[in-house]
């Protein structure tokens, strides 16, 4: 029995190359982490995060639970290839260890076990073992068949658009596709010549041997098997398949508590490499399924960054609605990654690739945008009024005076001491500047507004615009509690400060991206609406909510395409013929109003219309006690 054959060399070269490469890459990535993140990772590695990560790797990287749940056939395809291959290697190694010539073999002995043990698997336990190994191979091949079908007939395997690939990806893909069929044929010929093998390799082998010289043909197929593996491994770092090893690293990092942040770094780079180009994001993207734009989805963004292309346009041509992030099976923080690209000086790639794309030269990280100095020259010493509640309508709300007037009516009915901070127009909250990547300028506005809010002594800041809401909540350091008016309305109801009549009107609620997916407020508007109207839901709600198309996240999309997205959303919202579309964002309202034949209203307008004539008001709570403190006191 032979111990070695020259044909294993391509496989050996590839395998040792990729192992060394992964180690080196991980070391480089680790060294580039910030000090805090390094500590996090170290703590995570020796702590609970380790177990969590192993579990996640098993569930997501092998079983592909998330894809399996939303697209079963696509999930099966990924699972059969990943989990099947994993089991094949695992049991192959055990097989080689138990049934091979000796213990602790080099990997090639397990991978090419049948070549070195052609007569194995004809008796007793070994027969069952061979059957199991054949079953695993069949499992993988079934997935491969699906992959081939998916490649040539898009839409069959549950995903409408397959991503476009570059040449290296194609070669790697071909190598990947060849691995298992060549293993099947190599094993079959060997088994055919030796009368061994189980239901798959045995039967195929016997049939092939009946009219072909099996012994002679087996050898070239073993070569092909080894070559495909070798090529696949060597190309791995420059193709999308790099996601296989990278994702493991990503899972460890994420479970250790590392997040994207606002600058480029190891984590964003690992995320970009972890993208498997599965294309789930393309299906979720309204720009794709409404307007047919198919070049800017996260798969393409990540690939272009990996390929070192100019991504200025891709980075900015996005609604930032976050629908893709909800469906991403790898859990990449897509919007944060895109924002990093926007912050970067345009036209310059973030990271330069060199040495055939195998390593990245971190010295060439694009410089940040230059400091433009103070640009707004905002006057201080603006008149500030003392109030318990401060109302910041937001730029957009000034173009939808219906919302503004409704809020004033609600404030009057609530009996609270309110100051309308931007009645005569105010400074922008700063979010649009951030979305365009101009953080420094945004900071100027934030400081200006913070000062006014602080001086007013308000305990609560109510805003009508979800965009402002997010920025006040996340990027300001305010003592006042920040509330969107949906939350404020709920709080008024909960406190018994405001009562409504039930109108019974059939309405549908549209979740604005910024209030829903980004701020996570889904229940408050529904609860408030249920007091005044008959709420009907559609499948595209909450996390699956649609973008109205008016998003300020996209700088490039032209108005007619935005209108098309809005019309499509309205069509879906009005499927059950509601009397009214209710939303809670002035931008959504304005965008929908332009294309909808059904009335579009803000939640504030709907509730303001139904304020009960007789208000039984509880004694007013002291202004200095915030809601949180009250809840705490009640609990105690």
């Amino acid at each position: 029995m032979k111990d070695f054959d020259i044909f294993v060399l391509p496989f050996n070269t590839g395998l040792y190359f990729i192992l060394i490469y992964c180690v080196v890459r991980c070391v480089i990535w680790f060294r580039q982490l910030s000090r805090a993140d390094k500590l996090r990772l170290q703590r995570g590695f020796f702590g609970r995060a380790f177990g969590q990560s192993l579990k996640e790797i098993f569930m997501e990287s092998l079983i592909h639970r998330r894809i399996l749940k939303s697209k079963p056939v696509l999930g099966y395809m990924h699972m059969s290839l990943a989990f099947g291959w994993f089991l094949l290697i695992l049991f192959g190694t055990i097989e080689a260890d138990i049934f091979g010539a000796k213990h602790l073999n080099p990997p090639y002995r397990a991978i090419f076990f049948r070549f070195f043990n052609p007569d194995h698997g004809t008796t007793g336990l070994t027969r069952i073992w061979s059957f199991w190994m054949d079953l695993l191979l069949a499992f993988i091949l079934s997935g491969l068949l699906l992959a081939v079908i998916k490649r040539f007939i898009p839409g069959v395997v549950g995903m409408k658009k397959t991503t476009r690939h570059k040449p290296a990806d194609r070669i790697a893909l071909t190598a990947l596709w060849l691995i298992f069929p060549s293993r099947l044929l190599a094993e079959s010929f060997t088994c055919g010549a030796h009368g061994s093998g189980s239901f798959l390799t045995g039967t195929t082998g016997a049939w092939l041997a009946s009219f072909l010289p099996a012994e002679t043909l087996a050898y070239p197929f073993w070569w092909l098997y080894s070559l495909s593996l070798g090529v696949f491994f060597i190309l791995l770092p420059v193709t999308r398949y790099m996601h296989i090893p990278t994702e493991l690293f990503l899972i460890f990092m994420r479970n250790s508590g590392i997040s994207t942040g606002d600058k480029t770094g190891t984590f964003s780079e690992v995320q970009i490499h972890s993208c498997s180009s599965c294309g789930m994001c393309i299906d979720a993207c309204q720009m794709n399924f409404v307007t047919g734009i198919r070049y800017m989805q996260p798969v393409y963004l990540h690939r272009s960054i990996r390929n070192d292309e100019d991504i200025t346009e891709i980075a900015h041509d996005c609604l930032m609605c976050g629908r893709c992030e909800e469906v991403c099976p790898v859990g990449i923080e897509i919007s944060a990654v895109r924002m990093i690209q926007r912050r970067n000086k345009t036209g310059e790639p973030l990271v330069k690739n060199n040495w055939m794309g195998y390593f990245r030269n971190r010295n060439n990280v694009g410089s940040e945008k230059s400091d433009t100095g103070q640009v707004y020259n905002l006057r201080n010493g603006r008149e500030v009024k003392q109030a318990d509640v401060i109302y910041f309508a937001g730029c957009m709300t000034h173009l939808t005076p219906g919302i503004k007037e409704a809020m004033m009516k609600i404030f009057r009915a609530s009996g609270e001491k309110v100051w309308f901070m931007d009645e005569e127009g105010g400074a922008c909250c700063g979010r649009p500047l951030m979305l365009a990547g101009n953080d420094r300028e945004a900071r100027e506005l934030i400081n200006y507004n913070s000062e006014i809010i602080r001086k007013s002594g308000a305990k609560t800041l109510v805003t009508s615009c979800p965009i402002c809401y997010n920025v006040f909540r996340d990027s300001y350091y305010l003592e006042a509690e920040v509330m969107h008016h949906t939350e404020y309305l709920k709080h008024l109801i909960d406190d018994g400060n405001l009562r409504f009549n039930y109108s019974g009107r059939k309405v549908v609620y549209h979740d604005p991206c910024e209030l829903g997916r980004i701020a996570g407020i889904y229940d408050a508007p529904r609860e408030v609406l249920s007091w005044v109207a008959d709420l009907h839901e559609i499948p595209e709600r909450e996390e699956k909510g649609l973008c109205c198309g008016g998003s300020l996240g996209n700088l490039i999309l032209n108005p007619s395409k935005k209108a098309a997205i809005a019309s499509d959303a309205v069509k879906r919202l009005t499927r059950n013929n509601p009397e009214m579309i209710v939303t809670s964002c002035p931008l959504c309202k304005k965008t929908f109003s332009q294309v909808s034949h059904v009335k579009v209203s803000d939640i504030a307008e709907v509730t303001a219309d139904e304020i009960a004539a007789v208000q039984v008001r509880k004694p007013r709570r002291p202004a200095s006690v915030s809601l949180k403190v009250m809840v705490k006191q009640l609990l105690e």
Partner: protein
Amino acid sequence: MNSMVDVLVIGGGVAGMEAAGQLARSGYSVILAEKEPLTGGHLKNWYHLFPDRRDGNEVGEYLDNLVKNKNIEIRNNTCITGITGRKGKFTATASDGQVVEAEAVIVATGFDLFDSRRKEEYGYGIYPNVITSADLEKMFRNGSVKLADGGVPARIGFIHCVGSRDEKVGNLYCSKLCCITAVKQAMEVHEKISGVKTFCFYMDMRMGGAYYEEIYREAQEKYGVSFIRGKVSEVSQGYNGRLVIKAEDTLAGRPLRMELDMVVLMAGMEMSDAGEILAGKSSLRRGENRFFSTADNHTASNRSNMKGVFYAGTCTAPMNITESISHARAAVTEVVSYLREKKQRDE
């Protein structure tokens, strides 16, 4: 009821009445279908007409007399919702189930005024002192221009191009009459309220009609109407209850903020709902501006894509009364030659 008439005229506004009247005078039998209880169209609600500011009722009386003809059967409250048939035998159905048969059809479904609530930033339907040009005409007819609380406005702003030349509401075209109407209304406001200040906010002053430019001069010279070049972006209400408008004085190059007592929105013209319904239930073609599209812009502006169906008036594009009447008369000549040729063919 179902006996065949020569011509069915759909729409009893200025163009429809003129067409029906002229056809009847030439001896043709006509059914004039009007969806409202009375004929007269938008003219009924208009006070004075530009450019000479004569009483709109005078033109109304002329039209009423014209359609008092034994050859015309006026059917009020009849909204024609569909036309079928071809070459000299058309069947039209009304929303109430009536059926009218005619050898030729004139479509004169006219226009609807733009619903100003669609420009929410101007606050129509939200702030009581934001009104439309049509509302102001009603006030003129009632004899006084008053604020919602009964007070007398001291400052009135006119916002041009509301629902016209505006991609945001899907109307790219110019409605043609709003500029001159604003000038006329501003002058009339001065006549009703002494000492009032008026301001017209415009993008372009389109004074392309006989004597239009002259009354523009008169408005400046005699009444001191101010013209400010800049489209108003939004209207809001201040603490004192007065309206506040924001515009850019583009010629001064600076933002302009102004308090006003009343804002008048110069609502544009849109394809009428009745026309839309008719188009939906017939094979009549429409243009990108949603009005009916004519067979030829220059040489066949009365012909439709259905042989034997003709257009008169503002169902094809914004027009003033003079143009509507001329267009209706042109439609009559087309119908007459069509019916004559048909008769010759039949014999």
